[in-house]
């Protein structure tokens, strides 16, 4: 006798119920964590207005995907339970072109709409050039440290010569000793910036690909050898924030980190003065 008619009626209730229940539990647990945040499951508050745009786009995506997630998982669970083998005959159909049209169109509109709505958050940083009075800091990465260079009182970055790189003698960036503009450059291991002023970071690497990331900025950028990549941000809150490297760069990747200190304008000027004095 074909197995499909034998004992499957009573046999299917248990697995159907278990599977449907497991799926429901998974959905409920996931939604619960998103809503109630019972353990660390969210980034810290953003400290830039662009960061808020990113958060907004994330939240919008979460709502859309959340609804799709809940409906499809619960729909699956429902179908599993409702259409378990109870001795019925399956309903023969090859499908419905109308339905295909409807859900294809709906999905296109939803997904593409979502993608297009995220343009602003991306464009504000990546398509928009920095303001002319932005504070410029050069970020140099190598295995496994960050170094930050300010142009100093003369406002000009000195030339760099890779052949002159020598971390052991205090010249990790390879400042060209022959270039006078570099004499007053400030090189420090942490990044200090003023609050409420745009900062432009010129990101570069000496050896392999690294990355500069601060969660609170909602901004990260790979540091690629052979390129200088500019990004900009305006922090609107003082504080100390962790900078991490997110691009695998070798065995010390996990310990490559620094700090971003956002300070008041007077504190920032003091910082520059103090550093200038010690160069």
């Amino acid at each position: 006798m074909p197995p499909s008619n034998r004992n499957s009626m009573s046999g299917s209730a248990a697995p159907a119920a278990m599977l449907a229940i497991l799926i429901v539990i998974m959905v409920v647990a996931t939604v619960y964590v998103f809503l109630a945040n019972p353990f660390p499951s969210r980034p810290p508050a953003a400290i830039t207005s662009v960061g808020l745009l990113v958060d907004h786009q994330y939240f919008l995506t979460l709502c859309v995907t959340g609804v799709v997630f809940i409906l499809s998982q619960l729909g699956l669970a429902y179908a599993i339970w409702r259409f378990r083998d109870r001795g019925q005959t399956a309903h023969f159909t090859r499908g419905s072109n109308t339905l295909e049209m409807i859900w294809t169109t709906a999905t296109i509109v939803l997904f593409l709409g979502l993608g297009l709505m995220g343009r602003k958050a991306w464009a504000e940083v990546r398509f928009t050039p920095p303001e002319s009075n932005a504070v410029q800091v050069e970020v140099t990465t190598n295995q496994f440290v960050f170094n930050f260079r300010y142009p100093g009182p003369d406002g000009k970055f000195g030339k760099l010569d890779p052949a002159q790189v020598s971390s052991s003698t205090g010249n990790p960036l390879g400042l060209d000793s022959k270039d006078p503009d570099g004499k007053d450059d400030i090189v420090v291991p942490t990044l200090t910036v003023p609050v409420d002023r745009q900062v432009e970071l010129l990101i570069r690497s000496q050896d392999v690909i690294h990355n500069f990331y601060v969660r609170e900025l909602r901004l990260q950028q790979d540091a690629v050898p052979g390129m200088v990549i500019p990004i900009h941000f305006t922090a609107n809150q003082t504080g100390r924030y962790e900078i991490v490297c997110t691009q695998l760069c070798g065995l010390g990747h996990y310990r490559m980190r620094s700090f971003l200190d956002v300070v008041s304008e007077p504190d920032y000027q003091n910082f520059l003065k103090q550093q200038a004095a010690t160069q």
Partner: protein
Amino acid sequence: MSSHAHTGHAVVVEPSGFIRKYIFSIDHKVIGIQYFLLALTAVCVGIVLSLLMRFHLVYPGAHLPFVSGGIMTPEQYMALVTMHGTIMVFFVLTTAPQGGFGNYFLPIQIGAPDMAFPRLNMLSFWVTFLAFVAILAAFVVPGGAPISGWTGYTPLSGMGEVTGPGEGMGQTLWIVSISLFCLASLLGALNFIATTIDLRAPGMTLFRMPLTVWGWFVTAILGLLAFGILLAGGVLLLLDRSAGTSFFLPAGLVVNDQLQPHSGGSPLLWQHLFWFFGHPEVYIAILPGMGVASHVLSTFARKPVYGYRAMAMAICAIGFLGFMVWGHHMFLSGMSPYSGFAFSVLTMSIGVPSAIKTFNWIGTLWGGKIQFKSPMLFALGFVSLFVSGGLSGLFLAQPAVDNMLHATYYVVAHFHLVMGVAAIFGIFAATYFWFPKMFGRMMSEPLAKIHFWVTFAGTYCIFMPMHFVGLAGGLRRYADATGTTYASALQPIHMFMTYAAFITAAAQLVFLFNFFWSLKHGAVAGKNPWNATTLEWITDSPPPIDNFGGHYPSVYRGPYEFSVPGYRQDFIPQNLTPEEAARLK
């Protein structure tokens, strides 16, 4: 005996001798099993690597007797990460669904006696085997396995030992292994495509092919077009490392205060070449599973696949779009942000055919008569896991949001759910479904069910929390997260995931036992234990050497004629003539 038409002497000669039969066999069925066993070995290695990783993440200072030095170093952790990814993506996910089940069942499901080029098929397997030996060798050479991740970004992978341990011979072996794998896959793809185009039985039009065949066919096209790119990249990388060229290495590189003698290359070039291959690669990993899911869902719901044509075209759309989205791995790489936005729009588009498939899977179940045999359980699990994993992709597809998710555990959660779980469930569904046909015996249903429940719950327990680790800022490829203050707070979640991982891994032992025990002790299987409709179920279990014992079928209808009104039985095999089928009314 008549010498014409389809009856008559078998045209495939049974080989003699153990070597010709089981080692250097040109029979696609033997080759399929060889690929499957290779993947089985690889997945065991890959799981052990991942368990070591998960253990290290929660007990970084633990004393491990088999590790030289006693405590796992960061570079050893990175070697685990690299090798786990490489072995799983290539030797499991690209091997079992396509090389394993595709090889075994594509010819049979289209009514052919073998692949178009059986000797080439054998060559493909043995080159894959060589590639596997090469990658395993990386563990034992001086310096150990490479530490640059399965993505092998330059310059980290391009300058030799100077960038880190394992970057010498280990990295070279990695490149050699991958290159051999590319060659083998190109040959295999060639075979699959030619077979599907030219060897179909009379009456099997494209739109009467099972969706499993559509999956293998489009996957092969992806492979044909993508693996050549990776091979080119691998050749150039080998030259950079050993011949002094600078395809990927710019001027001015300083490692350990030493200026490197390269100039003019671009690290981004490697990324473009790698991801142009790498993105189609992940669709290569999932498309066969999608085909299997449709096939199994239909068979065990006793209903045709809902929207069969739409499903076939969705597979093609996913394949096509899969070539246009590689830049979404590179939003923050230094690539032009305008390109980034273009890639983003294309990536959101690829969500559309995937969503269509999900709706049609549910549509297939709707109004059905669902039987919860083990293949079906895994196919249902596949749908749930694919939804979960696919939706997180929508976040990553947007560059602005990627700013906060790139390189976090959110990405790891996403690709593990789709590749490391859903695709694996596709392999399990295929295994439970086709084991009776391949080996003439049934697997144990009770053991299969234990395997399913623990694995389904377990994999969700491992990978759902991982999203939250990523959202909170937990970073991937970190040997030790406890150094960052905010990341230490995530350790309890890591502990939970590690427990879940060990329990889920243990459940796989049930599968292994079931598989090997059933080979000898499973209940004898008939030709069609599932009352399915496609051509593999009309022949013996296991099939004879030429698949059909000389009686090659013709096809008269589509592949999913279940519960057709007016018939006494709820399935009509594809090969019944209209007269024969009429007798079922």
